[in-house]
């Protein structure tokens, strides 16, 4: 793997050059730990209500305070990481597969494949995206897989565009023709020659959309679509805390909301950092 040496060196340079990316990386690891080990790390049972301890402000025992049912907000926010990040990751993986392949095929084959994929993208883009996600979840039913699907669908055009543009440039660069002349079949060329080449940019795209996917899923839950109470989920927790904001119990909404925000922030920073590594020219 000699080819990796240069990118790795560049990566180290980017991380040391830009401490923000290093910071985001540390946060990212923290969130992944929370997502994987959350339930066993939580100091309290995230679902156990205890009305005697309802609406306690943050303290040594309840770091983030308790909610209206006396549940420990810290434990709930911690455990929610798995669901929130899981939904986002699943939807990003899904759209990566769908949009990536569609874009690849449309850039590679052109013609009616391109036209079809283009129409599909246009149709999705004709809607305000969050509203479309609402409509999909409302129509298909209020389940986690449907949130994943809806979030994937609204990101579809973006992935198609990136994959298509990259594929077109590669195709025009001529080495696809070379592979064809060498006797490879279309699919073989597509998967063997083109895909590995557009991979880095697609990965950047994935990390850039993760934050948006988390926001989207949390937003859907916030308005009552998607995950249902009492499941701990950041959007629902903010929704539950909303009514206590006006009476001064700020912690109920603040901590889950801040956790959500930091998670999104972390993924966005990481996406920017990753783009600097993969595609330094596009740095802004």
């Amino acid at each position: 793997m000699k080819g990796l040496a240069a990118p790795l060196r560049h990566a180290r340079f980017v991380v040391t050059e830009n401490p923000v990316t290093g910071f985001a990386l540390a946060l990212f690891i923290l969130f992944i730990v929370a997502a994987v080990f959350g339930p066993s790390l939580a100091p309290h049972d995230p679902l156990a209500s205890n009305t005697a301890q309802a609406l306690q402000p943050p303290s040594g025992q309840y770091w983030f305070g308790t909610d209206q049912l006396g549940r420990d907000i810290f434990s709930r926010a911690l455990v929610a990481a798995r669901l929130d990040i899981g939904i986002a990751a699943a939807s990003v993986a899904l759209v990566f597969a769908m949009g990536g392949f569609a874009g690849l095929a449309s850039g590679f084959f052109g013609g009616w494949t391109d036209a079809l994929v283009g129409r599909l993208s246009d149709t999705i883009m004709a809607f305000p995206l969050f509203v479309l996600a609402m409509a999909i979840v409302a129509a298909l039913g209020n389940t986690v897989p449907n949130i994943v699907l809806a979030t994937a669908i609204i990101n579809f055009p973006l992935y198609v565009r990136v994959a298509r543009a990259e594929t077109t440039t590669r195709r025009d660069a001529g080495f696809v023709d070379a592979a064809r002349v060498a006797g490879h079949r279309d699919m073989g060329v597509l998967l063997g020659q083109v895909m590995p080449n557009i991979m880095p940019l697609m990965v950047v795209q994935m990390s850039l959309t993760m934050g948006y996917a988390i926001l989207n899923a949390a937003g859907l839950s916030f308005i009552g679509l998607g995950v249902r109470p009492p499941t701990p989920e950041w959007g629902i927790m903010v929704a539950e805390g909303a009514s206590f904001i006006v009476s001064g119990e700020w912690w109920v909404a603040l901590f889950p909301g801040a956790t959500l925000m930091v998670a999104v922030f972390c993924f966005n920073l990481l996406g920017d950092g990753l783009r600097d590594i993969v595609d330094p020219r596009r740095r802004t």
Partner: protein
Amino acid sequence: MAGLLLRLAGSLPALAAVIVVTFVLTRVLPGDAATYFAGPTASAESIAQIKAMLGLDRPLPEQFWNYIVALFHGNLGMSLTTGQPVLTDLAARLPASAELTLCGLFVAIGIAVPLGIAAAVRQGKMVDHVCRVLVTAGVSLPVFFTGLLLVYVFYFRLSWLPAPLGRLDAFASPPPTVTGFFLIDAAIAGEWETWRSAAAQLILPAATLGLFALAPIARITRASMLAVLGAEFIRTARASGLSGVTVIITYALRNALLPVITTLGMVFSFLLGANVLVEKVFAWPGIGSYAVEALIASDGAPVQGFVLTMAILYVLLNLTIDMVNRALDPRARRGS
């Protein structure tokens, strides 16, 4: 005029797509529309009855035809929650949403465009760093959470602004309807007390939306301003001794705004979605909170009507953006 018609025709595919998709979503997919229409407590035969009544037992092409005919008659069905035709409800609530969204957009543009310009003109200086931080933080903000934070600070802590409960405080009555925009209607009627109340209620939700839309606008303004400032014609303008204001505003900014206007399409997509969340936070009586209430009550027709309205609005907004772009860019005008 011919250009306008041509543009209108150009957005027909998008409209058709919207109509087909809403049809597919509500009638074809497994989520059972009749169950929605019948309400959560309906029995099996009342569902069947409603199915027959709504024509859901017909073949799909016929259903689609009927759906389109109904649409052209402005028939979006009835809301079970309000007992009113959905169209009436939407029409009554649309101005509230529009007023909020537009105010949010103005707030965003009012801050983001000057900020983006300043960041580009003074690249690498303090403003530029501020701009970069705002842009990165801005896209990470969950809009419903920012709204709540603002409420906590400005209503609960500081008591500067009223409680987040709709468009007017409890003591004010709505001004006589002309446009449906309270700020405009109150001004027309000269009811300044009402105007003050409406403005006070509007500040926080509009600021929330504005903060949300600020980031993409500032980023694109900065980037496109930077690109234009490096362009050769700016060097010509400088070499001709034109004043700094003329160079920055008349030469650079006008050109830099073209990409900004084009990106507004994307901004509107975000804004209309965020609008739903903000309306819920501020109990704003617009079409977003209407849809959210209907969702909770499993009331299908209003949701469908809402999606259709939003999508049509979005298509129209994109059309408007396109026209503005043509008005400002001679190349777009004569190019096609």
